[in-house]
């Protein structure tokens, strides 16, 4: 696998800044994924267990690299293993969005007319809400947990996919090669899947990467107001919530390190998105 990745990387690097953005972003994300995955084997302390004789709010030291929180838990261990929730929520929300938003966007905008207007209206009304507020409302209705967080984020994000896909489909619809496909007798289904969809994939990818980044931040926000996961699961979002409270007592390390990780993860996706949008679009304009 590595032998196929390396040539790919070098092609990317040749694309200049955009390629590097993708590489760096991907490294961030990959590193965090790997870190989270192997965390059970490398954590110095159990991240969720509350020790019997807790060392509360210990400053960072050689024993506790990132210090401890108010329950005596080792922040470093929590940082290593706390990315799981964020990753799961963002991946799940993207999957839901793709599964619903892409077909919806394709069919509605290709069909045009009343269908397009109605669906568009629905999408616009969702889009009009401030994202976080809507996500909170939906999550409050659905309850806590990874799946519910993902769903509420997905609902908020589907209109973005719809808009992007719609504008692409509308412009592609007018191209001669679509007319040519019609002239040759292709059915609408074929045109959508073989002619239109492959040409909008770049824009979908870009929206998806922004979706990832946004989902992470929204998940943190949802956790902050108590709509996250139970405390038995290590989660950076929880640490943010907790740490914010503790700032006043001077324990800056509880919030800072998880906070940095969240930012790095979101940044990683954002960089990839930027780089992808640079590389994918110009190539087609040859």
């Amino acid at each position, binding site marked *: 696998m590595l032998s196929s990745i390396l040539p790919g990387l070098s092609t990317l690097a040749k694309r200049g800044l955009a390629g590097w953005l993708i590489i760096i972003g991907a490294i961030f994300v990959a590193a965090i994924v790997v870190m989270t995955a192997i965390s059970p084997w490398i954590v110095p302390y159990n991240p969720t267990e509350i020790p019997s004789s807790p060392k509360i709010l210990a400053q960072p030291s050689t024993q506790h690299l990132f210090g401890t929180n108010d329950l005596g838990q080792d922040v470093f261990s929590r940082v290593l293993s706390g990315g799981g929730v964020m990753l799961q929520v963002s991946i799940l929300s993207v999957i839901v969005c793709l599964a619903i938003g892409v077909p919806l966007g394709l069919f509605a905008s290709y069909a045009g007319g009343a269908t397009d207007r109605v669906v568009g209206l629905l999408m616009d009304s969702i889009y009009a809400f401030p994202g976080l507020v809507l996500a909170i409302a939906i999550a409050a209705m659905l309850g806590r947990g990874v799946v519910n967080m993902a769903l509420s984020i997905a609902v908020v994000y589907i209109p973005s996919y719809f808009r992007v896909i719609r504008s692409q489909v509308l412009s592609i619809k007018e191209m001669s090669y679509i007319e040519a496909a019609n002239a040759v007798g292709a059915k609408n289904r074929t045109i959508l899947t073989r002619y239109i969809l*492959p040409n909008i994939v770049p824009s979908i990818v870009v929206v998806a990467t922004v979706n990832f980044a946004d989902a992470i931040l929204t998940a943190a926000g949802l956790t902050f107001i108590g709509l996250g996961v139970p405390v038995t699961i290590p989660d950076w979002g929880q640490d943010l919530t907790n740490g914010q409270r503790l700032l006043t007592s001077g324990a800056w390390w509880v919030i800072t390190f998880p906070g940095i990780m969240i930012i790095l993860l979101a940044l990683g996706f954002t960089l990839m998105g930027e780089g992808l949008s640079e590389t994918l679009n110009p190539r087609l304009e040859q």
Partner: protein
Amino acid sequence: MSPVPGRKSKLNETEIIRVEHLKKYFPVEKGFLERLLTRTKKYVKAVDDASFSVQRGEVFTLAGESGCGKSTTGKLILRLVSPTSGRVFFNQTDITDMSKEAFRLCRRRLQIIFQDPYASLNPRMKIGRAVGHPLEIHGLAKGAEEKERVVEILQRVGLTPPEQFMGLYPYQLSGGQRQRAAMARALILAPEFIVADEPVSMIDVSLRTTIIDLMLELRKDLGLTYLFITHDLAIAKYISDRIAIMYLGKIVEMGEKQEIFSNPIHPYTQALMVAIPVPNPKRKRTSSELKGEVPSAINIPSGCRFHTRCPYAEEKCKEAEPELIAVKPGHLVACHRTQE
């Protein structure tokens, strides 16, 4: 062609396409207020009562400036656009109202080549798949057999070695090569009739004849008939057998190529002929006496639509629209002057 229900009309065995009183009006989208305040609907009358027939094996050209309706007419014949009124006959069968399913069979026989070689190929499909796709769509061939037919057709249009071109994406081909690929796609279903919509206007001048000559060669080898659409009368003269000049959606003159070029009767045709640049420094230029510009197709002038610019316009030209009538056998003109 499998028997399909449709009206049989006057029998003319050599006629492959006939168009009767074809009209295409596009409604103009009005702003919200305008819709509230005005009752009348406005239309872009892209094609306004066009009638002609195309004989098997000929190159019939629709010529005219931009906006005259020639491209729309081509698309109407292929039912890529649906007519506002009028009829289209293919091999004496009325295809205007045929069901979509039934017409799908006809589509194999009626194909089109577009103007823009950069836009007429799916950027995400390799040439081999794009050219072979029509076969899959109609269930005619798959896999190895499809590949064989693709290779054969690529050979025919001069994209050799075919195996190499099959694996390329459109962006890796030049304009002329892309146009050949588009032709291959149109030809793989063994059509009888091809609409060529400005097929060379976006190709380098010195390469145009390769495409044109290829088209003529294919006509001979495959028994094709062309409806050639162009604004370039010089190319029209080179390739056509018969030619129809269009202005604002109507045919104003029609006939054999030699006749039209040596004896243009309609004032618009005459103005076009005078305006064509000729590669000869010694040529005496006469400037055009044509006034004004082409009116908008939303507000077509009354009577003869050309009267606003015609140097010979009279009272009756403002009142009545002239019919397209033969002034001699095979040469039709729509002008009051010829009809006193």
